[in-house]
């Protein structure tokens, strides 16, 4: 076996970065949105660990709104990705409309559960 070095790791990251830079811009926007949602969820979990789980329904709705958002965004990303042959018959406009509708339902539930 060839011994791996830090140079290999750097090369790996560099190749990943250059590969990712070829990703279409719309998918990059979705990725950024997912990162934002997951980050918000993590902040809330840390806050809950700090102050306790008292308004548990509020905590749940806060975290689930982020998780739900992230999941829906990932679904959108799968559907509008040109490389994904499974959804090649699905128009990107249709995928985005589905995404908007699901988000409306999600946030309706979240607001009701927020307490």
């Amino acid at each position, binding site marked *: 076996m060839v011994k791996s070095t830090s140079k290999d790791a750097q090369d790996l990251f560099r190749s990943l970065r250059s590969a990712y830079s070829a990703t279409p811009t719309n998918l990059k926007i979705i990725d950024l949105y997912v990162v934002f949602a997951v980050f918000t969820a993590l902040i809330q979990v840390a806050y809950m660990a700090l102050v306790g789980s008292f308004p548990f329904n509020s905590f749940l709705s*806060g975290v689930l709104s982020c998780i739900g958002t992230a999941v829906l965004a990932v679904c959108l990303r799968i559907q509008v990705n040109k490389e994904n042959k499974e959804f090649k018959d699905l128009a990107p406009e249709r995928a985005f409309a589905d995404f908007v509708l699901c988000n409306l339902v999600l*946030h309706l539930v979240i607001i009701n559960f927020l307490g």
Partner: protein
Amino acid sequence: MMNLSRSVALISLFLLPLLSFSFSVDNPTDRRVLVLLDDLSLKSSHSIFFNTLKSRGFDLDFKLAEDSKLALQRYGQYLYDGLIIFAPSTERLGGSLDSKSIADFVDSGRDLILSADTSASDLIRGIATECGVDFDEDSSAMVIDHTSFSVSDVDGDHTLIAADDLVKSDVILGKTKIEAPVLFRGVAHSLNPTNNLVLKVLSASPSAYSANPSSKLSSPPQLTGSAISLVSVMQARNNARVVISGSLQLFSDRLIRSGVQKAGSPNQYEKSGNEQFVTELSKWVFHERGHLKAGSLVHHRVGETDEPAIYRIKDDLEFSVEIYEWSGKSWEPYVANDVQVQFYMMSPYVLKTLSTDKKGLFYTSFKVPDVYGVFQFKVEYEKLGYSTLSLSKQIPVRPYRHNEYERFIPTAYPYYGACFTTMAGFFVFSFVYLYHKYLPIPISLSIPASCNESSCLDSLTLLPTDQIFLRSSSTISVSVDSEQGNLIEAITL
């Protein structure tokens, strides 16, 4: 509502004289007792005991146990409230009486004093067995005690026991301590271990045993020591009370009047403890002491007076119940610090000891648990010697209504913020996603000079610079400067 309860009370007042209750909470005086004797001379030889009963207002009806006209009930109504059987040798009761009808009498909540003696008949043993007491099977056996006999026992067979091992219960034996030993001459019995309603009132000393005093002891006696009970009581689940004594002489004038000195003890008493013992015991058995009644179980929210039809979880409520004890003449406030209330649904969710104002009112307050469903207030009071109280009142408990929850909790502000941030994020994302421009990614291509715009694009060789990978599926829009044969710009989509 008030009118209805008043008319019910009025009707029951009219009905009361017509019905013969056992121990009626509404009408506890005027009690008739049937006394069954196997010899009418017992009436005079046990006159002190009978006279104490009469002086307390009991109407005693003396009958021979074999009287053919004996009847406990007529037209389905009981004629008596209590029964004293001082007929140890009777093999068959007269009239319609048998051990089953006596068991029925107790089952109807009425009281019984049963006294056996040496050579007790099978009938008496059978009645005692029904009450959870087993007399020594040897019919000639007596309780013998070579250490705690009475010195006045002239026969020398040590069968006149000076017993002082009394149950420690003020309610059964009265507040005044019985100082002098109780004289006892009779048969031993043991308690049925499966019956938990029966208990020893007068126990034999550890040195006692049960055997025939006139014959030599050839085999070890079956009943020995503290397992022997001399006098036992039983309070049934319907609060009927039964006294079972192994000695008829215990109640006799002779033993009541006689002095007593326990063997080996310097204390000499002018009078034996028998009179106090049988009087106090008869007061207990005929419900002149230790009979509790509970009434007006009241509960309401703190700060209100009306009883609600339903509670909400986490409501603060106040609960009170009144408990009185019958003193033989009137209902006196019951004072105790161990009455408890349960807030019960399948199991007690709240168990609180009630405080008392010493005027009969027991009260407490507590918070309804965070569980909704159909609950009960339960007071289950079982105390040695006292009649059993069992009250319950059903009350439903509902969850919060939708508008009763706490709003805008400061702790939860970050969660609220996160929700609205996510919504704003969704809005911004949608906007950006819909209106962003496709940014060109420059790539350089080398195009053969022979190429013109339409013919050679298919055969273009993409030469990616070191930073750019093109996937085979990328759509490329190309603008070509055909004059120079060089590609200027391409973007991927």
